[in-house]
């Protein structure tokens, strides 16, 4: 931490100029930092989007359930009434509502087309149940329904919700792991670039040691350079990545089911942490490379 502070506070004079300008490693570092920041924006977008998705699925779906009633037409109304009666006395039920024929039509339309004669079909009745955050004791409810309305089947969506949530969470973990890998690869490449620069400047380092320069001074000359490049490159990459994400085609047209791979609202601030992290990675890896190299020159 102290190293970081003195690093930014000291004046930029000869300390910067003692290392001759190096075109190749400079461009390599800029490019690496930019490319990695660009990728990091996507990994971040992926993690945030799947995080949102998993939350949406586990949260809103957990609160909703359906009861499907299949019965002979003459018994249907009695069974529906019985189910509603049971629900009224079930703890954890916030509200329940029988779906109208129009709603059913809407649900079935994607599969059977708009001309579906709902009245002529022996469709089951659906009751949408909204649970409180405490939730319903699913097994208990099933037992009671069996007794009161044998044609009613309670479906709390866990069957298909769980694997989806698990998949979303796994993808989010992969996204976060990609972020780690991206910064790790960046550290590796910047270390290599710094090592190349240090090796090319062996004469300079020897001359500096000869006139009594301390390791900290020499290391700082290199570290400052690579940190600046890492910061500039990563900022450029981040901006490009954010532009690319902003211009992704919206997924909302396909329904909220697939939440868009992008940032929403305040999440747009998240990519802003990429350049500082890149700068810290560049700082750490150059310092590591410099101090290791210096140990070989007395």
């Amino acid at each position, binding site marked *: 931490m102290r190293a970081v502070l003195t690093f930014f506070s*000291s*004046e930029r*004079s*000869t*300390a910067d*100029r*003692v290392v*001759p*300008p190096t075109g190749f490693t400079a461009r390599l570092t800029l490019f690496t930092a930019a490319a990695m920041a660009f990728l990091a924006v996507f990994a971040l977008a992926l993690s945030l989007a799947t995080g949102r998705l998993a939350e949406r699925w586990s949260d809103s779906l957990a609160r909703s359930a359906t009861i499907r009633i299949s019965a002979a037409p003459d018994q249907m109304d009695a069974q529906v009434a019985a189910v509603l009666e049971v629900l009224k006395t079930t703890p954890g039920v916030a509200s329940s509502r029988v779906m109208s024929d129009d709603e059913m039509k809407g649900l079935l339309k994607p599969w059977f087309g708009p001309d579906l004669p709902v009245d002529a079909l022996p469709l089951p009745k659906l009751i949408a149940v909204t649970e409180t955050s405490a939730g319903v004791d699913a097994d208990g409810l099933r037992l009671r329904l069996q007794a009161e309305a044998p044609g009613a089947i309670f479906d709390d969506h866990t069957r298909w919700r769980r694997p989806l949530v698990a998949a979303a969470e796994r993808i989010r973990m992969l996204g976060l792991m990609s972020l780690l890998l991206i910064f790790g690869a960046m550290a590796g490449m910047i270390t290599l670039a710094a090592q190349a620069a240090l090796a090319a400047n062996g*004469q*300079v380092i*020897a*001359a*500096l*040691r*000869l*006139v*009594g*320069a*301390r*390791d*900290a*001074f020499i290391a700082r000359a290199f570290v400052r350079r690579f940190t600046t490049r890492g910061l500039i490159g990563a900022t450029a990459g981040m901006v490009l990545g954010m532009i690319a994400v902003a211009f992704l085609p919206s997924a909302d047209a396909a329904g909220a089911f697939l939440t868009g791979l992008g940032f929403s609202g305040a999440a747009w601030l998240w990519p802003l942490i990429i350049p500082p992290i890149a700068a810290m990675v560049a700082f750490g890896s150059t310092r590591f490379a410099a101090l290791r190299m*210096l140990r070989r020159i*007395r």
Partner: protein
Amino acid sequence: MIELQHVAMSYGGGDLLRDMSLQVAPGSFHFLTGPSGAGKTTFLKLCYAELLPSAGHLSLFGQDVRQMGRDEIARIRQRIGVVHQDCQFLDHLSLEENVALPLSVNRRTADPGELRELLAWVGLKRQAQSLPPQLSGGERQRAALARAVMMSPDVILADEPTGNLDWEMSLRLLSLLVELNRMGKTVMIATHDLNLIRQAKAQVSARVLRIANRQLHLAGADL
């Protein structure tokens, strides 16, 4: 200032130098001579802790070199001005910046008046803005001397400072070193130029060390 007790030095094979004992007193003037490859440069490197002795005891300013950390070595080098055999400049910085380098690496800036005076003293005032590769051999060696005395060190170690100079320029450089010695600086010059040593003896009481048979000998009063 510099004290050796039974110091030996080897680069890995057998001993290049062995059983060297010497005490360099403050204000003294030493020549170090011997054939090429005898180990003069190696000896000087021991004296500014670029090399560690493989045996024996070597202390600089009362400090054992083996006990010194890297920052302590850096601090010692602020008190020992070195004219390196091949000068060792930063080729992308001007002569002036190179001469001021010992100050800059300690985050100090040279007083412009003093710097100009120093460059005038070695006769390089006009070349202040030149880059080292643009200088002649003699100019480079005078610049290296100016850089070595920038910090007003107690000791000046010069490795073949007249190596590629003509006789006139050699004398000029020698008189600069003699002048420094008169100001109280300890001076040690490695050279194989016996004429230079004779010339110096006329101006200053110098001791001559000779490396022969891998050992350090104090040469007699006359050569």
